């Protein structure tokens, strides 16, 4: 298999990377881990003239806590770095678990958080849990920086709000009163299988009442989607088994799956129902975020 020829550049700063992306325009692509991009280039689905590598940009790799901001995950952090990170294991273990649910060790050692998000594949495993935790995307471009809700980052399969010359710098998980969260991926095998459906949820529970809730569905719509009607069923109510069952049914009804090689519309809807219930129960009972 041949990768079509391209020019490789490895800028020394984020600013330089953005400037190069502006200069090369549509003929350039950012290269992070390459686990998606190189596959597409080998398959002939993409033929960029320039690859702008993030290899030297160590500032994009750190995972740290900033008072007043929250946990900042650099876009270049790999899935294994996320999975094994102490801070994340203590504060948001569900994110580590979601990273762990992906691919296999070899891919998790090169694939990055940024690549997983910018790819904007509906079945990607990190967006649901990050959106459930109200994460923000920090975007840097040649004319400055902006931070948006990750929920608003995705426009459609392969499409994000990133404009020419912009790169995703980091994901921010703000401090929150959430009491539990969870992501369940349903794949056809335990390793190396993409999600047929995935459901993430986060809950804030006190005195048996659901004060706040987010339910986010993966692989059942053109973008990761919040099941807002389902959330409304549960928000502000005393938690009961019947209510959680109802939440699952509503989430299934509002999901927008397609039939493909991994599963049919009916099968996926049924999965959303079951996984939503399981994910909520785990988030309510588990007692970790």
């Amino acid at each position: 298999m041949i990768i079509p020829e391209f020019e490789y550049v490895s800028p020394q700063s984020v600013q330089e990377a953005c400037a190069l992306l502006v200069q090369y325009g549509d003929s350039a692509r950012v290269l992070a881990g390459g686990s998606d991009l190189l596959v597409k280039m080998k398959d002939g689905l993409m033929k960029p003239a320039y690859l702008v590598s993030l290899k030297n940009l160590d500032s994009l790799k750190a995972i740290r806590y900033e008072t007043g901001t929250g946990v900042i995950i650099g876009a270049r952090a790999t899935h294994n770095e996320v999975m094994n990170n102490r801070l994340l294991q203590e504060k948001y273990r569900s994110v580590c678990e979601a990273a762990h649910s992906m691919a296999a060790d070899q891919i998790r050692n090169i694939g990055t958080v940024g690549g997983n998000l910018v790819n904007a594949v509906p079945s990607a495993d990190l967006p649901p849990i990050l959106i459930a935790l109200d994460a923000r995307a920090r975007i840097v471009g040649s004319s400055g920086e902006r931070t948006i809700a990750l929920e608003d980052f995705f426009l459609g399969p392969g499409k994000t709000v990133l404009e020419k010359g912009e790169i995703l710098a980091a994901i921010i998980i703000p401090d929150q009163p959430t009491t539990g969260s969870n992501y369940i991926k349903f794949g056809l095998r335990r390793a190396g299988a993409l999600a047929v459906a995935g459901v993430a949820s986060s809950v804030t529970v006190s005195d048996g009442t659901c004060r706040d809730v987010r339910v986010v569905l993966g692989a059942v719509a053109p973008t990761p989607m919040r099941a807002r009607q389902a959330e409304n069923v549960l928000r502000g109510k005393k938690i009961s088994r019947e209510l959680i069952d109802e939440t699952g049914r509503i989430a299934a009804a509002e999901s927008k799956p397609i039939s493909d090689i991994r599963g049919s519309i009916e099968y996926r809807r049924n999965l959303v129902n079951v996984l939503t219930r399981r994910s909520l129960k785990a988030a309510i009972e588990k007692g970790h975020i």
Partner: protein
Amino acid sequence: MGTAIKKGKLHVVTLTVNGEEHAVLVKANTTLLDLLREEFDYTGTKKGCELGDCGACTVLMDDRPVNSCLVLAVEADGHSFTTIEGVEQGGKLDRLQEEFINQAAVQCGYCSPGMILSGKALLMRNPHPTEREVREAIGGNLCRCTGYVRIVKAILAAAEANS
């Protein structure tokens, strides 16, 4: 100027392979897999799917397994790699390799280099893994012959020998 080298088309890459440092010129679209096989003759690194699915091309990058078919040679700059040829020490097979032989964990052998490197990386970071941890560590390595049972046994036996 015997060979025509177009400016900007070749990149100098400095990397360590099996303990030896090398500086090589590579084209941007060369994969680490092709560099290891064609330039260094480390043909124990196998070429399977070339898409990250099978793990036959597994090598250790700074002691962590990666699919060399999905790493560009230019991106290997500054890193250290171990291929299956670098697992034996001083002409003596590593205990894990011996256990692959003892437990008959090799049939056609195509998956074995990758399996052994994934197993080796696991044992380096976790000398006493559970069977589940072993199965997970080789989750990115496909074997079409053995049914995995003997491979798992071999890695567990090598771990046993660690203690």
